[in-house]
């Protein structure tokens, strides 16, 4: 498939997806949704990809934002075909979001569906739906309030006001602020380092953290132990421990 709203390439075991824009607006939301769905569908079964980076580079504030009036016709029981967050949230491997510039509306909702978020100092964040008599619909309300707490989330959603990088960092919406020229190189370095770790361990870690937060602590601890012992059957764990004992680099096979 040829992608138009995004481009992607691999650097070793890391896949980078760059979202395109037209200067003043994000690409056509339906097309982005379609293409993200497609690319995530190819990443999911690919054993060679260990980490995904999604890069948003939006220097100008979007002037023509489709805040999703079309979703009103959605069947609440089915997956939203316009969603950017759903296909990304289904990936088992770590997903890092790189934000340079404006992450507003659905773009921020996409970022919230990733595991780790980094942004440049000049970035701006917001869920402006209320200005159009709408509410966020791509997981933004649920994920934002869980991430930065009820009070901060309420303020952003009810006022529709944007916040800057410093505020986003303080609230815990993003993990780190990085100089814009250094942003992607630094994230790539981290992703490459991550891709050297045990591939099954990375996936299980993500799974047990995400599922665990939906469980009681006791249930979460049980899940952790079960996945830990399941890993006892993997050759990667044996390799990881032997490599440490023999003071050499581990060679993981992802099994």
């Amino acid at each position: 498939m040829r992608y138009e709203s995004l481009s992607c390439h691999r650097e070793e075991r890391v896949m980078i997806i760059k979202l395109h824009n037209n200067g003043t607006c994000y690409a056509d939301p339906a097309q982005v949704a379609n293409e993200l769905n497609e690319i995530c569908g190819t990443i999911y079964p690919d054993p060679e990809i260990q980490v995904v980076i999604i890069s948003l580079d939006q220097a100008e504030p979007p002037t023509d934002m489709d805040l999703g009036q079309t979703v009103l016709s959605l069947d609440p029981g089915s997956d939203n075909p316009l969603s950017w967050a759903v296909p990304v949230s289904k990936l088992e491997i770590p997903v890092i979001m790189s934000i340079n510039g404006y992450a507003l509306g659905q773009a921020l909702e996409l970022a919230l569906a990733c595991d780790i978020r980094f942004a440049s100092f000049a970035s701006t964040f917001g869920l402006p739906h209320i200005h159009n008599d709408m509410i966020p619909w791509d997981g933004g309300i649920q994920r934002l309030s869980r991430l930065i707490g009820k009070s901060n989330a309420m303020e952003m959603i009810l006022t529709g006001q944007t916040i800057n990088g410093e505020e986003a960092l303080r609230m815990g919406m993003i993990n780190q602020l990085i100089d814009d020229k250094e942003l992607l190189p630094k994230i790539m370095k981290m992703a490459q380092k991550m891709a050297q770790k045990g591939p099954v361990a990375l996936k299980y870690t993500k799974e047990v953290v995400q599922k665990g937060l939906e469980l009681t602590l006791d249930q979460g601890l049980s899940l952790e132990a079960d996945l830990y012992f399941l890993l006892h059957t993997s050759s990667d764990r044996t390799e990881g421990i032997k490599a440490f004992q023999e003071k050499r680099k581990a060679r993981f096979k992802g099994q």
Partner: protein
Amino acid sequence: MSAFETLIYEKKDHIAYVTINRPKAMNAYNIQMRDDLYQILSAIKDDPDVYVVVFKGAGEKAFCAGADLSEFLTAPSPVAARKIRWQRDVWGLFLSIPQPIIAALHGYVLGSGIEIALCCDIRIASKNAKFGLPEVALGMIPAAGGTQTLPRTVGKSKALEMLLTDEWIDGDEAFRIGLVNHVVSDDKLYDYATTMAKKIASHNPVALKIAKQAVVRGMDVRLTEGLYLEKGLATHLSTINKQQPKT
């Protein structure tokens, strides 16, 4: 009064001090320590004379640098290992201790070390502390509750960053993300922890246990159930207080 190979247990003025004591091995957690810890925690849980607990590490290098990997790959089978894990559920016991627990953290606080710290209620770190979870680098995941306790302490995003990257953070960064309550200079660590323990121990021990219980259990249920629990526990406490007037 200590008869343990890997831990020192002391008690003074209603404060229990548990010192992880394998300084030559950077206080690495091993099977012997699991058994010692199980015994000590069981004793603390049932001791009405202990109002508050302080955990610390012996030596200058580490609070606890992780699990002792020389003992790994020795388990007979995953099935047997899982059975042993639940036979003596030391982490479940740790998280069920009714008294407040303070961790005084210095040097390496890695793997099992950070997980022990996360089983405590209040964490104080020295500036030189280094926190990290290196499990994924070894092809495994944490197994002392870290995947559950860390996100509940610092949030999903920061937790995943630490768990997935194996990048270590220092005391100041740990304070910024809410992993520790206070960060102090290296030489002030034990004074700070002891002062706080004394302050806590000056309060009604039953009220302390009930306050801890209300927070810990309340975090695990929906708000309406948490409010109900809080009301019930407060009523219970005031009944006890009426029966035993302040001396």
